[in-house]
């Protein structure tokens, strides 16, 4: 399989090797990583560089609606927003993708096909992942057949936390196979993994199993994405790239609501993973309300006065 490169063929051979490898990864010192991310959080981004960051962030948004109350109408208006985030300003970049439940994929595809906006679907018994593998595969295939270009799967946190790394690994590989050409984002649900060491292990496990992206959260568990967790994941894709030459992506999701937050993440991307990751193909924001704040801040930058919520569209 292409997903585990030759360097790591040995470590994924069996459960024992996998465990040994994951537990042999350097530890993460919690205070150290939190300090580093807080330090980077004090970077001050102004003027042209802020404008650039805002547009970049917009282009990285996976505009998301994952509600029981979602309707085709809601998804259609979300897609309109994705295609053209600020109707008054056509130069605003479109977002990277919309992210919806599998049954909404068809609606979304109809709205965005040909625009360059992707359609991501959550799958594998999102958000808990508590179902049979058969159902999870079917869930994935349903979304892919409906035209999803990206699949956001959840890992079985129960299996991970009880040390069944092989089982999680196999599941990711199986889903990856079911994805066909769709790119796979592996949701670690870091809020349930509890420690940075676990986040690092789960990141490597997902990368070994062939995940194109590692994603922090479903958005249904608190805490969702945090800066230090994202640091650890960015470090993992950086190290993976250094070891294999393969670029993989990171997607923090949940809780990123303001431009200020988004810029902090971009600074981390720039300085932890590297400038190469400042690219929607390698970094995404899973968010809904973030986009409007980015648009408001963008107007503020251009118009020289503060904007208000009535000047961006509510979707």
């Amino acid at each position, binding site marked *: 399989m292409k997903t585990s490169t030759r360097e790591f063929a040995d470590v994924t051979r069996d459960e024992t090797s996998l465990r040994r490898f994951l537990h042999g990864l350097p530890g993460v010192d919690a*205070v150290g990583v939190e300090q580093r991310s807080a330090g980077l959080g004090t970077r001050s981004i102004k003027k042209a560089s802020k404008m650039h960051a805002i547009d970049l962030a917009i282009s990285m948004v996976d505009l998301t609606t994952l509600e029981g109350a979602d309707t085709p109408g809601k998804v259609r208006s979300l897609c309109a927003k994705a295609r053209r985030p600020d109707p008054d300003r056509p130069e605003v970049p479109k977002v990277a993708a919309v992210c919806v439940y599998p049954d909404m994929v068809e609606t979304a595809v109809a709205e965005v096909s040909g625009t360059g906006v992707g359609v991501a679907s959550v799958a594998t018994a999102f958000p808990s992942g508590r179902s049979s593998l058969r159902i999870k595969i079917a869930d994935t295939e349903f979304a892919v057949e409906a035209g999803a270009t990206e699949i956001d799967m959840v890992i079985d946190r129960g299996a991970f936390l009880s040390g069944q790394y092989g089982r999680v690994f196999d599941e990711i590989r199986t889903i990856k196979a079911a994805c066909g050409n769709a790119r796979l984002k592996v949701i670690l649900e870091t809020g349930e993994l509890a420690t940075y060491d676990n986040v690092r292990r789960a990141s490597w496990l997902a990368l070994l199993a062939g995940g194109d992206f590692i994603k922090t959260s479903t958005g249904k568990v608190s805490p969702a994405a945090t800066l230090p967790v994202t640091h650890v994941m960015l470090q993992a894709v950086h190290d993976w790239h250094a070891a294999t030459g393969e670029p993989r992506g990171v997607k923090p999701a949940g809780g990123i609501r303001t431009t200020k937050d988004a810029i902090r993440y971009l600074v981390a991307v720039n300085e932890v993973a590297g400038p190469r990751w400042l690219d929607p193909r390698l970094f995404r924001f899973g968010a809904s309300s973030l986009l409007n704040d980015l648009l408001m801040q963008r107007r503020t930058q251009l118009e020289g006065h503060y904007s208000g919520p009535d000047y961006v569209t509510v979707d």
Partner: protein
Amino acid sequence: MSDRVTVAKTYKLYLGGAFPRSESGRTYPVTDARGKFLANAAQASRKDLREAVGAARKGFGKWSGATAYNRGQVLYRVAEVLEGRREQFAAEVAASEGVPQKRAQSLVDTAIDRWVWYAGWTDKIATVLGAANPVAGPYFSFSVPEPTGVVGVLAPQRSSLLGLVSVLAPALAAGCAAVVVTSQNRPLPAITLSEVLATSDVPAGVVNLLTGHTAELAPWLATHADVNALDLTGAPPELRTDLERAAAGTVKRVLRTPAEEPDWTARPDIARLRAVLETKTVWHPMGA
């Protein structure tokens, strides 16, 4: 009294756990307070002093590495053996200092009690002088007192045993090793003390006692780069400033005391312990 001829004792140096003569082959006569000849004492040279510092550095590793409990036991053992030689010490102190037998006995008793007092300190120092530091951040920080290393001691000139014990015992209790230049004119109780130390489980090199001329040896002690601290208690007054200046060459900790010897019978505080201790602060993050 019988007519038996007594076996005279040869007073030697105490160095690295052994009793060598001075490498220089020199001795000097020691008299009692009235000027009557008592013995020939070895007159240590700067090379003896150099050997002593080397021995002390080795001894320091063992002594500072021992548990505080163990150090306390060893020091207490010294007091036990001292007690057993009470009469001998009293005679030597009486002869050396020219005090009445009863007074000498009392000084010896106080010296033994002082030794016991310091023996009990070994495993309390860290409790009393250490700290948990409530730093403003997610760190566990603590401070522990640690022995500074090799201490050069110029022992009191007048108080031949109690004074010596009062300056040596705190250095040992703190975990330091010592190179002691004994009272120049009253060295005999110090040499007898070294025999006690040699038979009391104090590791070799932890205490080194050099008899000889203080003014000759002190500058070498003050300038020796492998000596961490210098106790000037018995330094000749006219040399004190020079010695202190010399000690600055390697930033030694210098224990300065008034030129006039204190009343050694007074109850001590822990200032002499503090003088030969360093505070080490350790930090570690707290995080899962």
